């Protein structure tokens, strides 16, 4: 089945507009605690989730919003959940890291790596109860260092479970670059466990679709798990209020809040030799500079697909985008109005 680029773009655009609205609502203080958005990884979800059928399951990490949305969970239910409302998806009990949609067999967890065992378990249930169904795990590059995820690779292989393990590699785990935390090569790692594995440009929804389509066929046919290594960026840094991005966005605030303690440490009379201190300082500066890549439009999966659609039919594109913006705008108004009613 060939992917419908318009449909994929629509899913991504909706997710983007929705999460941007979430950002504003969070910024306004109406959502408490952390907020990890999926801005930048929409193409991975969009390339895979429309290929799922009833009975397929989803094991998500702390960035579950795009996947839940694309799987058909109502944006209002999500937003009300983030706002901690009794009418939210989970009655306000879970929050954005703990989204659960039982009728869609979709579950998330804020524990890094937990998507691995969860997907294996969903895969086991599929194998025993729902022939031809699969489960999909979404997790980051950082999670590939988590023992339970690695154990799950092995378990899925020896039990030939119908699982698609999808690594959304954005090159960072909070402030830790993947190249300093992930040994070797992830494709080789998955293959060494005896798993089929493919690498794909995670900004390109069509490429993800293709790769996922073959992977899903493999898994549905009972040939065991597949690993998909999809590269992407996180446009909003690790979470809203990301300290590294703040260095550019709010330099004065950052100087006082983050740089000043470092300067004090750097010049403290007792400590390491100057060479050591300089190396540490250089490392921090290097990280701050390299974080810019994360916000470069080149990495934006929407911009990867949009020009082609615009060339194809600019009018249709504008209409599509407008209608999605309208829809989300309505959801936001509704959510805010409900909040008013409650108070």
């Amino acid at each position: 089945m060939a992917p419908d680029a318009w449909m994929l773009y629509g899913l991504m655009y909706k997710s983007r507009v929705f999460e941007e609205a979430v950002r504003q609502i969070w910024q306004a203080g109406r959502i408490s605690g952390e907020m990890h958005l999926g801005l930048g990884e929409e193409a991975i979800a969009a390339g895979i989730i429309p290929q799922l059928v009833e009975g397929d399951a989803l094991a998500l990490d702390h960035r579950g919003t795009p996947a839940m949305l694309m799987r058909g969970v109502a944006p209002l239910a999500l937003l009300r959940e983030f706002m901690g409302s009794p009418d939210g998806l989970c009655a306000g009990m879970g929050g954005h890291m703990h989204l659960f949609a039982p009728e869609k067999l979709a579950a998330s967890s804020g524990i890094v790596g937990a998507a691995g065992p969860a997907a294996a378990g969903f895969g086991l249930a599929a194998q025993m109860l729902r022939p031809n169904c699969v489960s999909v795990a979404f997790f980051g590059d950082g999670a590939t260092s988590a023992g339970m995820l690695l154990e799950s690779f092995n378990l899925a292989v020896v039990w030939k479970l119908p699982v698609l393990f999808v690594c959304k590699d954005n090159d960072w785990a909070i402030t830790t670059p993947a190249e300093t935390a992930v040994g070797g090569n992830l494709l080789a790692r998955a293959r060494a466990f005896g798993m089929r594995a493919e690498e794909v440009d995670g900004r390109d929804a069509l490429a993800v679709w293709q790769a996922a389509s073959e992977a899903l066929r493999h898994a549905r046919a009972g040939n065991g798990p597949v690993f998909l290594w999809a590269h992407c960026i996180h446009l909003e840094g690790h979470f809203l209020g990301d300290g590294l991005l703040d260095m550019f966005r709010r330099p004065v605030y950052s100087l006082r809040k983050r740089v000043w303690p470092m300067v004090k440490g750097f010049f403290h009379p007792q400590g390491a030799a100057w060479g050591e201190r300089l190396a540490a300082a250089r490392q921090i500066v290097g990280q701050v500079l390299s974080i810019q890549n994360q916000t470069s439009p080149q990495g934006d999966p929407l911009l990867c697909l949009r020009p082609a659609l615009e060339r194809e039919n600019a009018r249709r594109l504008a209409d599509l985008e407008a209608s999605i913006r309208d829809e989300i705008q309505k959801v936001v108004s509704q959510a805010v109005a409900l909040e008013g009613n409650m108070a």
Partner: protein
Amino acid sequence: MRKMSFSEAIDDALGQGMAADPRVLLLGEDVQGLHGGLFLRFGRQRVRNTPISEAAFLGAAVAASMAGLRPVAEIMLVDFLAVAVDALLNHASKLETFSGGRWQAPLVVRTACGGGYGDGGQHEQSLWGWLAHIPGLSVVVPSTPADAGGLMLAALELGSPVVFMEHKLISSIWLDFLGSGGRDTVTFDVPPDGEHGRVPDRWQPIPLGQALLRKKGSDVTIVTLGVGVHRALQASAELEKQGLSAGVLDLRSVSPLDKAAVCQEVSRTGRLLVVDEDYEGFGLSGELAAIVLEAGISCKYARVCTQTTIPFARRLEDETLPNVARIGAACRKLAG
């Protein structure tokens, strides 16, 4: 009425549950060998060996239970749960709350626990109080074959996560596997009524959270569970000769805890002795103190628990675990 060993009873009840409900399956390390009867009866799909990946297979069991299966995941020894407890602490036990009450994890974790056979401190822990600390988790610790089977059936039917603990000293399969290794040159202080006994012809579920008064007593109430029940009964029999009447209440499950039964007995005798093979501090023995105090019962209180890492040396181990002598002395002191 049939007679059966403790370990047979558990497998028998589990077998009844598996026959009745095709969604039930058993998975864990070496379960095909350890529970060979079930393996040859239900085959490879429903009795599954796992790699030594407790975190993955326990986490998988949680998700499988969410997706329609009724897994019984065996963690060989509860000590090993330490590498996988995230699946219980942060996932299974929290699912119902997190999902706003819309999703459950009907999972049984079967695990062997307890000491008294010289296997050292990393293989003989009890940890039931440690697990019961987690809201949303039930913890079952049977002390007889009849209870073991009935509680297993109830655990299978409960619909939320249960840790089912099998004390090795009364479980002949485990004791043979880890304690004697087929030798007849070693003996352990195995309570016979725990190891073997009458069981119903067909298992009926025994609801969780119902303590059983194993012996009535007027001077002291001993609240205990697992092997502690038998140690307490023995101590009580000896105390009786000395004119001291000690009742024995078998909790059967740590969580839910039968607070009413505890309070009723303790308010009658005015003296509470907790006999708990789990570590003393911050666990079951303290919780029982809190329960009686909360109920406004004024009583004398003492506890006989495991206070330190369990020593390997058999003699030291016997001194460390709650034993008849310590229980007797504590009762006399409480009553004296």
